[in-house]
C-alpha cells in the first residue's frame, strides 16, 4: 500500500507543479520566444542562400592582348567553370571586353570587381594582370583568380608543346587520394568531416543537458524555497512524505522541462530534417532526400535521452534539498552555487574536448567520465565521438542511477528537517544539522 500511496502522491504533486507552472505567462512567453529563435537558427542556411540568391557573382571582364592565341571567351568560360563550384552561390560572372581603358575605368568606378588582362611575354609565356580595388589579403577572389590562371597558363604551355586537348584532360585528372586513421576503432568516424560533425553534435547535446540542469534545476530549488517561505510546506508535509514531495517536484518540473524542449525542438528538428525539400521549395532546384544531419544516430539520441534524464534527476534532487534549507529566496544562490559549479565543470571539460584542448580518451579523463556528476557530459561526449562503447555507457549509467538513489535518501533527510528550520544562515553546518535531524 505504501508504494501505491507514494506513486499516487508523487503524481498529484507532479501534476500540480507541472500545471501551475505551465499556466504562467513567463513560461508561455519564454517557450514561444525560444521556439521561434531556434527555428530561425535552424532555417538560417536556407535564409542565407535566399539572401545571396540575387547575386550572380562578382563581375569580372577578360581582355586578351594581340599576341595571345587564346580566345577571351574561352578564358572567361574556363574561369566560370573553375570558380563557380556551387551553382546556387556563384563566385564570379566573367565576360569579355575589347576596350581595355573603359574596363579600367569601370573597375575604378566600382562597376566591375576586376579586369583580367592577359598578354604574351617575350619568353612565350602568358602574363596575367588582375586589375582590382579589392584588398588581396581580405578578399578571396584575387587568390582564386591566381589559382585559376595558373591552370590556364599550364594548359597554354601544354598546347604549345603540342599536346592535344584530350590528352590534357588526362593530365589534369584528379589524383586518387584518401585519408586513413590507423587508431580509429570499428564503427568510428572514417572521414575528417564526419569526425568534426560527431564532436560538434556531441557538444551540442551536452549544451542541452547543461542548460536543462541550470535552468530547470533552479526552478525546482525556487519552488521548494517558495513553498517554505509561504509556509505551505508544513501543511503538505503532514499530507505527504518528504520522499513523495521530492519525487513529485522533480518529476513535475522534469516533465515541464521535456515539454519545453520538445515544443522548441520539434519545429527546429523538422526544418533541419527537411532542409533539402524546404530549400528546393523556396529556392527552386532539385530536392535532396531528407535525412538526419551528419553525426546524429538513433543510438546517440537514446544515450542522450538516458543521460539527460539521469543527470537532470541527480542534480534536481539535490537542488530541491538546497531549496529546503533556505529561509529567504536571496539565500538560494549561495547554496546552489557549489552544485552549479560542479555541473559547469563537467560541461566545460566536454566543451574543451570538442575543441581539441582535452583528450577524453587519455587516462585521468576516461576515469572522470564515470564520475556521477560529470558523466552526463563526459560519457555522452565520449560516446558521440566514438571513444566509448555501449558497455562504458551502461557502467556510467548504473553508477549514476545508484548515486541518484543515494542522493534521494540524503535529500529527503535534509528536506524533512530543512523545511522546518527557519532563520538560520545557510551553510555546511546547516546541511549537516539537517542531515542529522532528518527522518
Amino acid at each position, binding site marked *: 500500500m505504501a508504494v501505491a*500511496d507514494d506513486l499516487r502522491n508523487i503524481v*498529484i504533486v507532479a501534476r500540480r507543479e507541472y500545471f*501551475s507552472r505551465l499556466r504562467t505567462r513567463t513560461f508561455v512567453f519564454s517557450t514561444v520566444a525560444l521556439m521561434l529563435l531556434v527555428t530561425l537558427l535552424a532555417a538560417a542556411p536556407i535564409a542565407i542562400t535566399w539572401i545571396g540568391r540575387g547575386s550572380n557573382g562578382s563581375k569580372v571582364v577578360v581582355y586578351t592582348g594581340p599576341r595571345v592565341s587564346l580566345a577571351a571567351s574561352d578564358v572567361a568560360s574556363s574561369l566560370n567553370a573553375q570558380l563557380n563550384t556551387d551553382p546556387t552561390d556563384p563566385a564570379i560572372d566573367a565576360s569579355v571586353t575589347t576596350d581595355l581603358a573603359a574596363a579600367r575605368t569601370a573597375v575604378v568606378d566600382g562597376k566591375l570587381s576586376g579586369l583580367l588582362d592577359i598578354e604574351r611575354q617575350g619568353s612565350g609565356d602568358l602574363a596575367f594582370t588582375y586589375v582590382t580595388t579589392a584588398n588581396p589579403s581580405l578578399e578571396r577572389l584575387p587568390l582564386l583568380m591566381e589559382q585559376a590562371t595558373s591552370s590556364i597558363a599550364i594548359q597554354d604551355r601544354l598546347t604549345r608543346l603540342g599536346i592535344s586537348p584530350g590528352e590534357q584532360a588526362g593530365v589534369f585528372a584528379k589524383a586518387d587520394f584518401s585519408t586513413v586513421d590507423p587508431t580509429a576503432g570499428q564503427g568510428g568516424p572514417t572521414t575528417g568531416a564526419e569526425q568534426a560533425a560527431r564532436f560538434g553534435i556531441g557538444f551540442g547535446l551536452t549544451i542541452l543537458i547543461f542548460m536543462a540542469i541550470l535552468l530547470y534545476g533552479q526552478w525546482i530549488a525556487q519552488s521548494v524555497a517558495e513553498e517554505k517561505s509561504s509556509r505551505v510546506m*508544513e*501543511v*503538505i508535509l*503532514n499530507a505527504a512524505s518528504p520522499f513523495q514531495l521530492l519525487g513529485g517536484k522533480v518529476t513535475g518540473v522534469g516533465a515541464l522541462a521535456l515539454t519545453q524542449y520538445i515544443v522548441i525542438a520539434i519545429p527546429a528538428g523538422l526544418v533541419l530534417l527537411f532542409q533539402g525539400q524546404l530549400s528546393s521549395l523556396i529556392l527552386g532546384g532539385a530536392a535532396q532526400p531528407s535525412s538526419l544531419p551528419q553525426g546524429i544516430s538513433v543510438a546517440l539520441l537514446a544515450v542522450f535521452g538516458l543521460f539527460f534524464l539521469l543527470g537532470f534527476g541527480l542534480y534536481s534532487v539535490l537542488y530541491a534539498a538546497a531549496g529546503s534549507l533556505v529561509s529567504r529566496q536571496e539565500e538560494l544562490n549561495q547554496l546552489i552555487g557549489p552544485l552549479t559549479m560542479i555541473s559547469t565543470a563537467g560541461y566545460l571539460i566536454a566543451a574543451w574536448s570538442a575543441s581539441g584542448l582535452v583528450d577524453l580518451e587519455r587516462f585521468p579523463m576516461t576515469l572522470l567520465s564515470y564520475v556521477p556528476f560529470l558523466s552526463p557530459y563526459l560519457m555522452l561526449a565520449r560516446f558521440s565521438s566514438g571513444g566509448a562503447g555501449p558497455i562504458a555507457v551502461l557502467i556510467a549509467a548504473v553508477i549514476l542511477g545508484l548515486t541518484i538513489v543515494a542522493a534521494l535518501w540524503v535529500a529527503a533527510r535534509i528536506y524533512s528537517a530543512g523545511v*522546518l528550520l527557519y532563520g538560520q544562515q545557510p551553510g555546511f553546518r546547516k546541511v549537516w544539522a539537517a542531515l542529522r535531524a532528518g527522518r
Partner: protein
Amino acid sequence: MSLTFDAVRKRFGSVQALDGISFSVEPGQVFGFLGANGAGKTTAMRICLDMIRADSGSVTLDGVPSMDLPRRTWGYLPEERGLYPRMKVLDQLAFFASLYGLPEGRARQEARDWLARFRVPDYADRRADQLSKGNQQKIQFIAAILHDPPVLIMDEPFTGLDPVNVALLKQAFLELRDRGKTLVFSTHQMEMVEEVCDALAIIDRGRLVVQGPMREVKRSTGKQVVRLAVAGDPDLPWLPGLPGVTVTRSGRDYTELEMGDGLDPETVLQAALSRGERVTHFEITEPSIERIFVEHVGRPVEAEDERTLAAAPGTPSAAGV
C-alpha cells in the same frame, strides 16, 4: 480512540524542548494544550504527527505508534499559516485532500460545503493571496479537516481571528466533537480553553505541569474564588485585611478574591454584612484557568508576546464575566 503521549523527550542542541511529557486524550474530547511561547507545544504536536522524531518516549493512538498510522489519520493546522498564494482556493483544497487519498470530485464537493458553512462560498474561485489573513485561516482549517480525519491537531487556531470567526470556529469544534472526532489544540488564550475544552494540559519549559479533565484541573489548587460586589463603594478597602484572602481582580462591576486553603467563603460575606455593606453580588466559583496557570507555573503567560497582548486575559478589559 485514545491518543497517548508517554514520556516523550526531545532536545534541540542545548535546549531541552520536551522533558518527559506524558498525557492522554480521550476519544471525542476537545483537548486544550496550554503554554507560553517556547514551552514545547509545537514540538509535541510535530512529534505526534511524525514530522520530527522524539529522542525517547512514544506517541500512540489506541496503542499504535503514531508513525505507523496512515497520514489521513491526522488533520493538521500549523501555527504558521500557509497556502499557495497564486492558486485558487478550491484547487488548493482539492490538492491537499487528494494527497490524503480523497477522490478529487468528492474533495471539491466537500470543500464547497465547508466554504458555505463558513459563509464564504464565493471564495472558491479566488486566489489565496486575494483573501484577508482571517479568511485564509478559515481556508486552512477546511484544508485540515476536509479528509475527515479522526484526530485533529491544531496549533493556535484562534490567533488572528475576529470574534465572528472565533464563534464560527468554536461551533465547528463542537460539531466535530459531537461526530466523535478527537480535537487537540494549543493556545495561550485561556478563555478559549474554558469555553470549549473538556480536558487540558499545561506545559511549561518542556515539562507537563498539570493535566486532566477541566473540573479536576480547576480543583487541583484547592482554592476557591469569591466574587463580591456592594452598592456604592467598589474599592472595598477592608477586604485585603481579612485573613487568608487575596484580591486577584478589582473592577467596577465586582471584586474577585481568592480564599486560602480550607477557609470558608461565607466568612467574606459575613464580614461584608457586619460592616453594613449592601451586597449586590456574591458568588462562589472555581478559579479561572488563568489563575490555575499562574498557580502552577508561577507567572502569567508572557505579556510581552505581541500576539498575546490583544487578547491577554490578564488585562482588566478582557477579563470575561
